[in-house]
Structure formats: C-alpha cells, structure tokens
C-alpha cells in the first residue's frame, strides 16, 4: 500500500463555545466534578447557519487551498457523519458543487457513528490505489445531537476535517490500515429520533476499549511496530479521559497523544474527532514523523492507520488555510440559554 497517502487536508471548527461548567450549572450539577470527570473544559457549538454541509465545505475548501490540484480531477467525495442535514439527499453533492468537482464524480454519504470519516479515507485509498480515480476527498464532520440533561450534552460538539487522498506529492504516506468490527450496541439513534441513546458503562470496556485496543494491536502486528516507534498517536476522543486511558493501555505516552487530543477544548466532534486530531498533528509534523491513528465508531468498529510524514511536508503551504490551533483559538462563548436556541432544544406550540 506504499504509494497512497494524504496530499492535503483542511479543518473547520465553528467558533461558538460553551463551557462544561455552564451546562452543569443549568442542570444543578457540580461544575468542577463534571469538568474534571469528563476532562472537557468547553465544546464547540454550531450556529444557526452551520451544519455538516457547511462544515464539510469549509474543510474541503481549506484542503484545496493548500494544494494545487484541479477540482475536476477529484474523482470521489465521501462524507462521513451521523448528523447529515438530510436523511435522504446527500451532503457530498453539496460539497461537490461548492468546490467545483461535479459532475464526473463518485459521491456517497457515510454513517458509522464516529468513524464514518476514517471509513471514507479507506474507500478513497482503495479507489486511488486501483486507479479508478486520481484524487478522492474523505470528510468526517458532525454537529452531534445530545438530549438536554444527558451526559452527552457536555461532549457532543461540532467540527470536521477533509483529507485529499492521492498518489502524487504525498505529504503523509498511509503505510497500512486495518479495521475491527463487531455488532455491539453501545450507542445508537433510531430512525426518526432526535437524540441518540447510550448503554451507560457498556460504552466503555466492551465497546470503545475492546475495539480500539484490539485494532491497534492488530495494526502494530501487521506492520511490525511498537508504540515507541511513533511520534504521534491519535485516538477517538469521546471525552478527555478515554483516549488517555486507551493510550496508556496500549503503551503510548501522554506526550505522543497530546498534539492530537482536542476534546478537552472543543468536545467530541464525532466523525470529525480523530480526523481533526490528525489535522492538528499534521499542522506540526516534520518529515519522517510516524503517526498512529485509531478511530472508533459505536455500533461498533475501529479503523487504524499507520502513517509516515514525507519530505513534501516542508513545502506544504499549510498557512493557506487556518491551522487547527487557530480554529481553536478563534472562539466566542455563549451561555446555556443561547445554546438551547442554537441547538433547537426549545419548542413551542
């Protein structure tokens, strides 16, 4: 698989933020306990005019601004999300039109809880490798739902990242990828339901931890690496605690995880989560840096990637679009009342 990789990437995070402590106060919970317990200080919130389509378009445009390719050479767009604005009608077509990649274009929307975006990367890799397309764009983005008062409300946030996959001028080679999938009902949203449901502690050991550790070990065995061979490690981040814990279980250090761990300051961007982590790592990566990425999607599955940064990163015009750190910095706080309005939690008859 040595010839396929990332040739560009872009990120987008809405600038509105709400602090965990404000949500906790609204529900009569102890702000300090909640913030410390989840490891989330604040989360991003989509404004009234932001959804998965706008976030995907922003991220795709950012990716295109950093490379010199003709949008008409893009052969496929796959958008992974669990909050596509339409139940029927693709987000990918909106992105395709917005970046002038239509009409000779393969498009589909993906859903696999928080790992649909990394599944999209795998699809694009296959199409590029088989030379069915020259470039493919894989996007992971979400404006995740959370019922008022639910534990998810402290985490479910908004953001996304886009990765252009190709063979030329690769800035980060994807050496290998593998997946681990079972039917594990830890978190779900039934058709027609506004908010997802979750199985309490069942979302931990048999779901997140089993799938990530199994898949991560499989990948390292496949490529013959150890945790210390990697400069950076990125894990799906549903809260600030799980990725640190799973890293420790696998033998990675907090230093390896730090650059890709965004959940404490933006929350869980679901399909965007591990992909924004990768974008943040690529913002600072140097040639020969090795990156270990493991996503997780409830339901349940995990995609793992072994990535090596190439010399092309030195010429990569990353400043043509906002860095992840700049997107995190650019923020405006809202209170819980405003949050309920923007997240459509209020209703009247």
């Amino acid at each position, binding site marked *: 698989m040595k010839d396929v990789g990332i040739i560009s990437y872009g990120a987008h995070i809405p600038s509105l933020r709400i602090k965990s402590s404000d949500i906790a106060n609204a529900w009569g919970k102890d702000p300090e*306990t909640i913030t410390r317990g989840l490891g989330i200080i604040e989360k991003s919130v989509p404004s009234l005019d932001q959804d998965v389509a706008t976030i995907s378009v922003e991220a795709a445009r950012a990716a295109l601004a950093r490379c010199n390719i003709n949008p008409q050479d893009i052969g496929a767009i796959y958008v992974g999300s669990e909050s596509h604005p339409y139940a029927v009608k693709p987000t990918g077509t909106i992105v395709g039109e917005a970046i002038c990649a239509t009409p000779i274009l393969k498009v589909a929307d993906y859903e696999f809880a928080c790992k649909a975006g990394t599944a999209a990367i795998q699809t694009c890799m296959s199409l590029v490798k088989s030379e069915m397309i020259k470039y493919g764009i894989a996007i992971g983005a979400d404006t995740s739902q959370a019922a008022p008062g639910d534990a998810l409300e402290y985490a479910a946030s908004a953001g996304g990242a886009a990765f252009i996959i190709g063979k030329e001028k690769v800035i980060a080679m994807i050496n290998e990828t593998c997946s681990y999938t079972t039917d594990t009902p830890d978190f779900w949203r039934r058709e027609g339901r506004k908010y997802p*449901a979750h*199985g*309490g*502690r*069942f979302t931990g050991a*048999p779901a997140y931890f089993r799938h990530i550790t199994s898949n991560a070990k499989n990948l390292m065995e496949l490529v013959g690496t150890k945790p210390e061979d990697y400069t950076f490690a990125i894990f799906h981040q549903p809260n600030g605690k799980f990725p640190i814990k799973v890293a420790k279980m696998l033998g990675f250090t907090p230093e390896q995880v730090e650059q890709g761990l965004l959940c404490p300051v933006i929350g869980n961007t679901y399909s965007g989560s591990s992909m924004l982590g990768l974008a943040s790592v690529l913002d600072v990566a140097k040639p020969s840096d090795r990156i270990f990425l493991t996503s997780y999607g409830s339901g349940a599955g995990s995609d793992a990637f072994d990535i090596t940064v190439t010399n092309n990163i030195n010429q990569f015009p990353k400043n043509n679009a906002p860095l992840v750190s700049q997107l995190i910095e650019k923020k405006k706080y809202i209170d819980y009342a405003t949050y309920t309005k923007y997240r459509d939690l209020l209703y009247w008859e």
Partner: protein
Amino acid sequence: MRDVAVIGVGITKFGELWDKSFRQLIAEAGAQAIIDSGISGSEIDALYVGSMSAGRFVGQEHVGALVADYSGFSLMHIPSIRVESACASGGIAFRQGYFSVASGMNDIVVIGGIEKMTDVVGSEATNILAMGLDQEWEAFFGVTFPGIYAMIATKHMHDFGTTREQLAQVAVKNHANGALNPYAQFKRETKIENVINAPMVAYPLGMLDCSPVSDGAAALILCAAEKAKKYTDKSVKIIGSGQASDTLALHGRNDICTFESTTYAARMAYKQANVEPKDIDVAEVHDCFTIAEILAIEDLGFVKKGDGGKAIDNKITTLDGQIPVNPSGGLKAKGHPVGATGVAQIAEIVLQLRGEADQRQVKDAKIGLTHNVGAGGASCVINILEAR
C-alpha cells in the same frame, strides 16, 4: 419434619456480566453446586428458583421451565418452581425447597437464584425495582427504592442521632470485606470521604450508600440430613427458618425505622433453631442501602433499636468483631442481582461454616444467619444454619 442439610454451593461472579446470558448464569451456578455436592443430576427431585423480574429485565417469564431445560433436566421432567418476592425471592425459594425436603416429599432439591439486570439501562432498572414497592400508593407517584430508604434513614437520624458518617462506615466495612471476596462485583476498598462525597442519590444516601445493579446467580443443593453423609462430610444443617410480611407501602407501618417483617421472621427462626441473637457467629444481612444494614442488626436483635449506628462505630460488625456482618461484602460490595441475593447469602454462610471462606473467614463460625428482605421490608425471610 425431618432435618435438612445444604450439601453443595455454587456461585457465579457478580457484576456487569455483559457476555453471559440469564440462562448461562443459572446453569453455571447450578453445575458448580452439583459438582460441589457430589450428587448426580438424576438424583434431583425438584428445582426451586428465585427471580424477581426476569420478565422485565430480559423479557423472559416461565423461568422455572427455562432453568430446568438449560440445566439439562428437561428429559427428567422434574418439577421446577419459580418463586417471586421482590429482592427476597432467593431466600424464600430456599425456604420452599427446605419445606419440600423436610416434609419427606423430596430427598434432594436444587435451589437457584438469578437476576440479569444490566441488559436494561439504569433508569429502567430503577423502575423495574420500584415494582417491588406499592405501585398504586408509592411507585406511581415517583417514589423509587433509594427514595424509600432515604426516608427511613432521615427518620433514623432524627430519632436516634444516627450520623451520615455511621451510614458511610457501613459501606466502608462492606467494601473492605468485598475486597477479599473473589466473587464480589466491587473487589476494592473505599474510604469514608469517598462515600460521603459521592454523587447524591436521595438525601442522605449517596451513590456509595446504594447496592449496585448486578448480574449473577447462585445455587444450593439441599438433601435430607439423614442421607447427606452418602454424598459429603461437609454438609451444613438448616436449624431454623422464618418468614414474615408487612404492609407493602411504607406509610402503613407503625414505625418506619423497624421492619416488623424482620422482627417476626427472626422470632420464628430463632425459636425453631432454639438460639438467641447472641448465639449467632456470623450473619449475611440485606444491606441494599447502608441504612438497611443498620436497621437489620437492630431488628435481628444483635443490638438495641437505635444503636445500629453506634454498633458500626464500635466495630461490632467487622470481620473480627463481636458479630461479623456481611463478610461477603454484602449487597453493597458483592453485588445485588436481586433474585440471586438470598441464595448467595446462604452460599456465603455455608462456606463460612465449612471454614472455606479463605481471607474473609470468620473465626470459629458455628452458627450463621441470613436475612433477606423484599423491597422496602414488606417481606423478609431469615434462615439459620449450623456447622455439623
């Protein structure tokens, strides 16, 4: 009535057993008990199974037939009876099985207790458990189990000066015991500040004052005492059994700080066994909440009414105390799969009386008592066993 002995025990690990089903758990406990007893399956005359709400927890009723089938007894066509009395289901299934052997109708019976509670989300488990309360007068209006015991705790604090710290110490003691029990859901100690600072459930009870939602099963083999020698030389004799009821709703009671179901059942069991509270060497009591253990040691006559809190302070009930209570870790630390609890309590006492309780062994235990309460005290069953 002839004498009856417990000749075999089996217990599964208690906890969130996501990879084990209802039928697997009971079959596992039953098989262990049969192996422990030395009987062969073909010698079993009947099955008694305690289960509170398999229907709501796992969508399965007709539990008697299910257990017979999945224990491999369907071809023998032996009678199998499911017993329900909320959280006292297991202890009462045991008592029914005991009667059937004592009467001479059966020689060998298997007692099972089982609950698989973690297949539903926490709020649903709370609702299901609340079905053990008075639906029309209590549960319908939103009262839950923690709510009932919180009212009792508040009254106990008011009437007798019981403190928040004393309640917390019950959990600390039971966690210390649970840490020594390989079957316990929480095999770890906890500190008093953890209990006091845990998230509030219903004042004054915090999360660590409450027993958990658990999966688990336990089983026992009962045999006519005169025939027990044929199978084992470590049988434990049943010397007393009592059962009583009380008003379903808490508000009907004379005093909410006394469970008369316990006092009446205890009187019956003590009388039959011809023992007094001071003769009991070890007890497994129904500590579904920390206040429940304080009530239990008072109502069983181990201490005077109102002195339960002080007894905890004076360490009367610790493993090396005057009357060790809940050496298994109790419902608090061992776990509380409701239908299994009463049977598991007896299994623990049998192990204690056989001297096989390892690190949690109570020294020189000869007479042991189990106290199993249904819901908010509307039913109670007490069994007293003696080492042979």
